[in-house]
């Protein structure tokens, strides 16, 4: 199938007082229509910045973004407005992403009004009612305000707002992280149903490994602004090649008895992405690091079909040819 979105060598640097902060550094990927790309990594690895840059919420520093075969790297205001119809975002925090002074129906109607999608008041009401049904919000909440609702219902409003314009591509930035597990499962199921129904393409950003495996077709692991591993979501749970991916997955607590295994714990913490040198960004925490790792930044290479890893020693570590 055709790629809906294609990103080539995307970079996003922020100017800070202490130097250039490399939030996203030379990331390339593509997502097929109707598929989900899971982006995982720890806080500060640039995964949210990546999502926001792709849909032009941040202006990129350099690189190319292609959407449905068209180059959308540089767009003017009007083009961007048209683009937003097709690209939407679901935000992490359903407590701060909704205007507290707007009712549920006003919140859901807002995108429809901005894009003048409805000719009459009646049509607008019908569309809002239908959207509330789609995301599982009871009609009695039509005139409620966000503070009256719990996190799960608020996140449903966020989803309804993102769906209102019938987009093709949705960036989901930690959409379930603020929710309790039982509610989290409801929202994940809802998002999967909607994806099937509307042929949606997701870029799903999260730090939760079990959620990402559940929902994604492909997974990209990021570390300090760079992609360290990219492959099929099944593959990564059986064959993970990058030392960081291994440590990250080993650190996930598993809810079964006797899952206590010897963990390859990594020492230390994420370093600063400000003015990084020409070295592997993970080298300072990597158990396999040697001079080569501090001498140059490894580029991503395809170690087996569809499986990309950015590590100088990937072959030695994993006994690959």
């Amino acid at each position, binding site marked *: 199938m055709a790629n809906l979105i294609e990103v080539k060598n995307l970079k996003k640097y922020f100017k800070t007082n202490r130097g250039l902060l490399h939030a996203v550094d030379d990331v390339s990927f593509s997502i097929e229509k109707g598929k989900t790309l899971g982006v995982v990594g720890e806080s500060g690895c640039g995964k949210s910045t990546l999502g926001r840059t792709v849909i032009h919420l941040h202006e990129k520093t350099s690189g190319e973004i292609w959407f449905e075969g068209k180059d959308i790297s540089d767009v003017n205001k009007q083009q961007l407005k048209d683009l937003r119809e097709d690209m939407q975002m679901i935000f992490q925090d359903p407590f701060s992403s909704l205007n507290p002074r707007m009712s549920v129906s006003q919140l859901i109607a807002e995108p429809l009004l901005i894009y003048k999608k409805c000719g009459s008041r009646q049509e607008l009401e019908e569309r809002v009612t239908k959207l509330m049904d789609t995301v599982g919000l009871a009609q009695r909440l039509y005139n409620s305000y966000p503070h009256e609702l719990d996190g799960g219902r608020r996140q449903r409003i966020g989803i309804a707002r993102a769906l209102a314009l019938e987009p093709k591509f949705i960036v989901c930035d930690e959409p379930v992280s603020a929710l309790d597990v039982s509610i989290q*499962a409801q929202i994940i199921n809802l998002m999967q149903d909607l994806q099937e129904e509307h042929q949606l393409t997701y870029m799903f950003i999260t*730090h939760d490994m079990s959620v990402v495996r559940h929902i994604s077709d492909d997974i990209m692991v990021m570390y300090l602004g760079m992609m360290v591993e990219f492959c099929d979501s099944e593959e990564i749970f059986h064959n993970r090649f990058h030392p960081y991916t291994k440590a990250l997955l080993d650190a*996930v607590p*598993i809810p079964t008895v006797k899952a206590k295994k010897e963990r390859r714990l990594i020492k230390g913490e994420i370093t600063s992405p400000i003015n990084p040198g020409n070295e592997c960004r993970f080298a300072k925490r990597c158990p396999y690091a040697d001079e080569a790792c501090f001498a140059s930044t490894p580029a991503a290479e395809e170690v087996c079909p569809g499986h990309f890893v950015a590590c100088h020693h990937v072959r030695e570590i994993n006994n690959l040819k």
Partner: protein
Amino acid sequence: MSKILEIKDLTIHYVTDDEVVKAVNDISITLEEGESLGLVGETGAGKTTTAMGILGLVPNPPGKIIGGEVIYKGKNLLKLSEAEMRKIRGHEISMIFQDPMTALNPVLTVGDQIMEVIRLHQKVSKAEAMKRAMDMMEMVGIEGGRCNEYPHQFSGGMKQRIVIAIALACNPSLLIADEPTTALDVTIQAQVLDLIDNLKKKFNTSLLLITHDLGVVAEVCDKVAIVYAGRIVEYGNLESIYNNPKHPYTNGLFGSIPDFSKKAHRLNPIRGLMPDPSNLPEGCAFAERCPNATDECRKRQPPVVEVEPGHSVRCLMFEKEGR
């Protein structure tokens, strides 16, 4: 082993002019020396209020301890005066708070903050206390030389280590950890959990771990109590709860977590929402969301039934099976 903490029928309500929030209802748990118990539940289940109840920190008003006993080494903590309680807090029972970003005082150096608890409970000189504070920092894996730095100079994981150092500074017999790793990244979480586990073994400290993460519990705890709407719905050792969960809520919780080892097409969430603790139903609080609920469930409060030795469930389905 001897019992270090026994909570009997603890009930805590928050009473305001308009409503009574029944945060904790008849919670009973026991903790042996050196043992760790996981208190698991969702937001608003009453986990933190239980911990605050043990330490006598429930804000009053509006919080009110309606009934029950908290027996620590033979003493009922609820009957102690504030001055007596202050000697226990931080000394014999200490707490690790959820959010390391707000638990530390931003205008005091971390060394001073660790020293504070040592100087408060033990008669030692300032220099000696500082030395002990630096030792504590080394123990949690931070250079002692950084004791004159302020909290903002440390990362989230390191701040949580400082909070742990403060909690362990007086070598307490009981440690209450309220979501100690929720604010941290997984790799840092693994480091902090290992640290807590090692220190617990070294000093034979008992641990009450409050969390919503069943994975964390499986790594650290011996016993588990599942809390729903202020009540313990299932209680037992780790193996019996994880391998043989009985209560429909416990089953629902396990069904809601995406399985890490295999890929399922759909999750089995619990439908609906937790009831409002200011308006709990007469019968079982879980009845509205329970797939097996009958009319009887809505009418009366299910009793605690022991389904196997040391494994008890609060559900009518098991009433007949019980002994």
